């Protein structure tokens, strides 16, 4: 018989729990025992599978991360000028922003383009625009990342055709296309074709590049936007892996071998949030992806198991309130990326909650990354947090959470059906709502938003990027000129071929390359594909 003593004099409230966003409870202190209890000590070295500590042996000692600020506005000429400005300031890669018209597969003179030409990125209608955008840029030295999805197959064709025309050997051409359409259905929204046809197009680009441009990375799978849409960090990575597996399965069905393309798949992840949770997310993600590719898919080349990534952005973490605080946030986010072993970094600029970044804001972001290399010592040694009891325990725990997220996707039918019917979208959207409620109630603390808010705060002075509708009109005029000067019969022939190939279920990349070279427009090629594949019918859910 036990006696229940009264609680007199005892504070019944337990100590406040600290739980990270992925749902892992954080202890006050970690020891070796915690690492062991959470799954054991990972003794693997950087450059060795499963790459927990980094995909390269020497990491930043050999070469610091590539700095690749997201840039593009107005037309190809204005964007080219900004590219040269960034390169002159020490940027080592380019990250191209397209306008929504180009992203959604329309021409600048289409009715759907109303009000959008050159607004959030540069307008691209034909190969001519690509020629202007990259004029004077050495594509062997500066790698280019195209942030393009719905119309990615067309834009990859344009990029390869442009490079070839300028005399670069496409077989040795490096670069990346975002080309992750499944995440577009979850967040970001620049889809065009139905889900299955969209996945087919991604596989077309993987297959084509594996043969013709083997050093080009045709896909960068994005956890980033899924996280922005409401996913927690473990889900961000778990859903991204589910997506990467969907593309991998599709490519394998084509008869490709895993080692022929897995190494060219890359990733794009977000860096805002709790620093330690993010670092553990990346370490756990690297280990898990290596296991998936090497053990599950049976890849023989260890490089196939590399989780290569751009880690950057952090858009949701930034605030419109007290915008200068975003400079500090950006620096912490860059620190996360550096401590996580990212191959490439891009930071959101402090003014991005307001506007397309000014040159000054972009330079501050660039300098933030550069001073980590030059002043803070972040490139001195590999995986500096490795071996920390806390980080190692968290890495083990995050891996379990990522696996849980992948299992959940399987339990709702797999990523492709669950995106087509909107289950994933509804899931992240519910969480985004909760996140907003928590921000407003103060349960989720945000400096300058729900704490440390100053009374009579002055309205922030932020310089706005002006929208240039003269440039938009010039873009339309230039499109008309290209259409008048090109060989229209040749365009017709290539579009007919494109349609035939699409109808036959063939890889459309060869036909796209030919059509692009004849200066077919983005809208013309997209329309042909829409005739065959149809358009995505969005499952409208809250």
């Amino acid at each position, binding site marked *: 018989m036990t006696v229940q003593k009264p609680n007199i004099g005892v504070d019944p409230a337990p100590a406040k729990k600290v739980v990270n966003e992925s749902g892992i409870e954080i202890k006050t202190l970690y020891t070796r025992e915690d690492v062991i209890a959470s799954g054991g000590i990972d003794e693997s070295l950087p450059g060795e599978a499963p790459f927990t500590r980094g995909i390269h042996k020497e990491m930043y000692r050999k070469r610091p991360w590539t700095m690749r600020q997201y840039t593009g506005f107005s037309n190809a000429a204005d964007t080219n000028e900004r590219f040269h400005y960034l390169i002159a300031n020490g940027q080592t890669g380019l990250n191209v922003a397209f306008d*929504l018209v180009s992203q959604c597969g329309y021409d600048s003179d289409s009715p759907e383009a109303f009000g959008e030409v050159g*607004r959030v990125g540069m307008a691209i209608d034909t190969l001519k625009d690509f020629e202007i955008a990259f004029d004077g840029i050495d594509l062997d030295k500066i790698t280019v990342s195209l942030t393009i999805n719905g119309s990615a197959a067309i834009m990859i064709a344009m990029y390869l055709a442009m490079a070839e025309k300028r005399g670069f050997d496409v077989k040795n051409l490096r670069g990346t296309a975002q080309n992750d359409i499944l995440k577009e259905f979850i967040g970001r929204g620049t889809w065009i074709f139905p889900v299955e046809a969209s996945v087919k197009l991604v596989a077309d680009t993987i297959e084509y590049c594996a043969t013709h441009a083997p050093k080009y990375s045709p896909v960068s799978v994005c956890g980033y936007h899924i996280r922005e849409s409401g996913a927690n960090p473990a889900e961000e990575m778990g859903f991204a892996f589910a997506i990467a597996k969907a593309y991998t399965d599709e490519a394998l069905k084509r008869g490709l071998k895993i080692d022929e393309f897995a190494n060219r798949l890359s990733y794009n992840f977000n860096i805002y949030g709790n620093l330690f949770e993010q670092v553990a997310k990346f370490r756990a993600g690297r280990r898990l992806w290596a296991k998936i590719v090497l053990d599950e898919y049976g890849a023989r080349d260890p490089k196939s198991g590399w989780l290569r990534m751009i880690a950057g952005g952090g858009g949701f973490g930034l605030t419109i309130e007290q915008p200068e605080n975003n400079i500090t946030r950006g620096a912490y986010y860059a620190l996360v990326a550096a401590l996580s072993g990212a191959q490439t970094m891009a930071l959101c600029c402090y003014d991005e909650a307001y506007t397309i970044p000014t040159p000054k804001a972009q330079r501050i972001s660039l300098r933030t990354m550069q001073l980590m290399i030059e002043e803070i010592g972040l490139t001195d040694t590999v995986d500096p947090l490795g071996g920390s009891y806390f980080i190692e325990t968290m890495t083990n725990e995050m891996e379990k959470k990522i696996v849980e997220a992948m299992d959940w996707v399987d339990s709702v039918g797999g990523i492709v059906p669950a995106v087509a019917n909107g289950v994933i979208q509804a899931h992240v959207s519910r969480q985004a709502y909760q996140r907003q409620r928590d921000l407003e109630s103060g349960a989720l603390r945000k400096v300058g938003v729900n704490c440390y808010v100053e009374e009579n705060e002055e309205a922030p002075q932020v310089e706005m990027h002006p929208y240039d509708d003269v440039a938009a009109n010039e873009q339309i005029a230039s499109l008309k000129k290209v259409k008048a000067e090109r060989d229209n019969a040749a365009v017709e022939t290539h579009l007919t071929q494109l349609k035939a190939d699409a109808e036959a279920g063939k890889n459309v990349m060869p036909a796209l390359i030919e059509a692009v070279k004849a200066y077919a427009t983005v809208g013309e090629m997209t329309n042909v594909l829409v005739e065959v594949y149809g358009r995505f019918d969005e499952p*409208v859910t809250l």
Partner: protein
Amino acid sequence: MSDRPIRVLVAKPGLDGHDVGAKVVARALVDAGFEVIYSGLHQTPETIANAAQEEDVDVIGLSVLSGSHIPLCTRLRDLLNEKGLDDRLWMIGGNIPESDRAPLMELGYKGVFPTSSSLDDIVEFIRENVA
């Protein structure tokens, strides 16, 4: 005034695919007891005006983050006026610079709720302004 709940059309005009905010606001309106029709992405001003008429909504709420809100809102204003829907409450949220507040109000968008507006304020504004 009838007993029917306030009906709100939450719409995404143009090609902007950022729908987190639109969905968050829509959910808050549902929780506040309103009936919400969410348009989904990539809607033209024409489809939005038609939906507003067919659904006989009290409130037309737009979400635009691409910066194209002035041209889109201007065109939609004309369409809504043509349909005699100028007696409904027009609202807009998203990435709206403070300098565009006055021009939008001038166009007839009585509620302008830029990024960082509170959900409760939006709900309250609708309650106060729907007759």
